[in-house]
């Protein structure tokens, strides 16, 4: 095996004190721009009586207010943009995955930096110009597919943007015939691909596949072993979120000992999600990200909701960027299902709309032959005359399923339960039952 390569050695191996200087400079200029150009930040800072001038070092970041997903939703569509629309060359959005969407704009420089970031983590995972990369991620409003596309092209690999539309048969046909060496996808789709390969009685040995970059959902080490064995690949974890940039925030190097955060582009903090106080390195808490190069859509102290920890020690691979542990959970009740994130409250709203009473329901997540399934068990309202009226129930079920599909773009199986049968379990997290093996 050849020596592992670092895509941008000047940045990725920067000494800590040089990095701190660079981060401070970029943070200050980002704050100055955000304060001048984004009303939300100006009023949030003014409300807390903080001024960008007071941020003299990275520690002072803790005096600044947080930005939440809800803030971004309220800004729909363009209120958080820091540049005029004519400077924006690309937009991505969470539209179609959640009820109230978030729109993220990229300037030309933002796209260039994004490309750099994904190129770095693809290189860190082991991708080279000799690879044939199959990207099985959505290429629409979702930022995932494009981000990896740019980075892989930048490295010079041959990129096949299969996306998710052609279906598993075509996906594995391409994989075999195009001699794909690297697969980029979500954990659940990787399992579906593995299942499809097994079903087609293809041996992974007939494939050229050697590496998989997996992200977009929380996935465990157990699942990683399973994917590695069934696809006969090495698996690398990548982390990113549409609001912040898309993929490219962090990724594992070949040593797989944490995900290197692109610290010249982002400042990472870990906070206690209850007290909101910053935690010391190594402690587990919610990841908070501040962008320090983005022009179009700067984010200051954005609460990602993802639970992880930070290790600032340099890595034996040579990179000095801090590493975040693999995400172990959420600080809120966001459910990640087939790469799509949604909240139980969104399901609740839909059922309420249809049933016209406060619903009792359960969300049951499971995995069948490698693919995640979603079942929503709805308690029949007493307002509906009787369970015998199958016709009414069937109409109701179709209506709920259709509404969920329209709002969240996910297929859910709707089942009904007797009145009062779900009351004991309702409230809080008891509503969500996650049976997916991890």
């Amino acid at each position, binding site marked *: 095996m050849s020596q592992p390569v670092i895509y941008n050695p000047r940045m990725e191996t920067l000494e800590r004190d*040089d990095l701190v*200087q*660079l981060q*401070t*400079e*970029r943070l*200050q*200029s980002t704050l*100055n*721009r955000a304060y*001048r150009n984004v009303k939300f930040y100006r009023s949030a800072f003014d409300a807390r009586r903080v001024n*960008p*001038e007071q941020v*003299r*070092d990275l520690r002072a970041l803790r005096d600044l207010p947080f930005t939440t997903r809800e803030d971004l939703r309220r800004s729909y569509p363009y209120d958080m943009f820091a*540049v*005029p629309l*004519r*400077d924006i060359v690309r937009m991505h959005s969470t539209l179609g995955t959640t009820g109230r969407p978030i729109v993220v704009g990229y*300037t*030309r*420089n933002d796209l*260039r930096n994004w490309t750099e970031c994904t190129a770095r983590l693809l290189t860190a995972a082991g991708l080279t110009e000799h690879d044939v990369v199959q990207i099985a991620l959505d290429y629409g409003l979702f930022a995932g597919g494009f981000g990896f596309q740019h980075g892989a092209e930048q490295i010079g690999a041959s990129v096949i943007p299969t996306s998710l539309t052609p279906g598993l048969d075509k996906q594995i046909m391409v994989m075999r015939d195009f001699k794909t060496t690297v697969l980029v996808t979500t954990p659940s789709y990787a399992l579906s691909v593995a299942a499809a390969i097994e079903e087609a009685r293809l041996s992974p040995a007939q494939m050229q596949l050697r590496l998989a970059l997996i992200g977009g959902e929380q996935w465990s080490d157990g699942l990683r072993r399973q994917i590695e064995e069934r696809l006969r690949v090495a698996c690398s974890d990548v982390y990113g979120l549409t609001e912040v940039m898309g993929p490219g925030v962090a990724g594992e190097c070949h040593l797989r000992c944490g995900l290197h955060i692109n610290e010249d582009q982002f400042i990472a903090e870990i906070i206690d999600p209850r007290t909101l106080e910053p935690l010391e390195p190594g402690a587990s808490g919610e990841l908070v990200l501040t962008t320090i*190069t983005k*022009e179009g859509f700067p984010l200051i102290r954005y609460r990602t909701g993802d639970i992880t920890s930070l290790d600032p020690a340099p890595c034996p691979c040579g990179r000095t960027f801090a590493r975040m542990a693999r995400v172990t959970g959420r600080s809120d009740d966001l459910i990640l299902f087939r790469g799509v994130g949604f909240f139980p409250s969104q399901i609740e709203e839909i059922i309420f709309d249809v049933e016209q009473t406060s619903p009792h329901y359960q969300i049951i997540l499971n995995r069948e032959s490698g693919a995640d399934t979603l079942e929503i068990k709805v308690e029949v309202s007493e307002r509906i005359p009787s369970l015998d009226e199958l016709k009414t129930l069937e109409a109701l079920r179709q209506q709920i399923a259709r509404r969920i599909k329209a709002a969240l773009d996910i297929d859910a199986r709707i089942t009904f339960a007797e009145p009062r049968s779900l009351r004991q379990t309702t409230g809080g997290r008891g509503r969500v039952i996650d049976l997916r093996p991890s």
Partner: protein
Amino acid sequence: MLRILNLEAGYGAMRVLKGISLHVSPGEAVAIIGANGAGKSTLLKTVAGILRPRAGSIVFDRREIGGRPAEEIVEAGCVLVPEGRRVFATMTVRENLLLGAYGRRWRWPWTRLFPRNQRADMFDRRRCAEHVERQLALVFTLFPILRDRQNQLAGTFSGGQQQMLAIARALMSGPRLLMMDEPSLGVAPLVVRDIYRTIADLKQHGLTILLVEQNARWALKLADRGYVLETGQIVLEGTSRELYGNRDVQRAYLGKEYRRIDD
């Protein structure tokens, strides 16, 4: 090489720099662009020791130089080519150049053994003379016109020639960081090209450069990185390519309007 954190400076009640942080790595050329009155010259003057910082730190070669006297900063290897050249008009070219080397002295290695008040003239005249000769030879190869006219009065030079003399004078002390304040100001457009060619040469030879310019086009062509200064604060940092591609920079400093004109 140069590392500035939260620098504040001004004149009287006027705060000009409101917490500036920037750095220049060895061998790098860094441009600071900004409109009139943004604080560009104030920044260079403060680093050069002409103005005292009110807060913040200026570290040159791991040594704090903020608030040190100007001559000490020159001696440390950090030299300013001031705005508007400021050559000594009534002196000859050669005299101007020799003055540029004035601060440079090598003390005898055992100087420290003597009380401070006796040290003043204990420097090594031979090594000083050698240094001056070497630097003169260097600037004469860079600017042949100065060799040809070394006995001419500086005041009779054109703007462009004076600018070259001012750069040459700064080089006489053998600096490692050359700071330049608007080298294109008051110089004919054709001569600007020559001046920038010379600066690029100096960069090629390993000199580190911090450049302040209103003429962003030239500055970004030369520099590796840049900062955009607006009303005493830095609002943008990036590689020259990034700044060149930034639409705000294009509108404000490159004279490009909404439609993109590639040149």
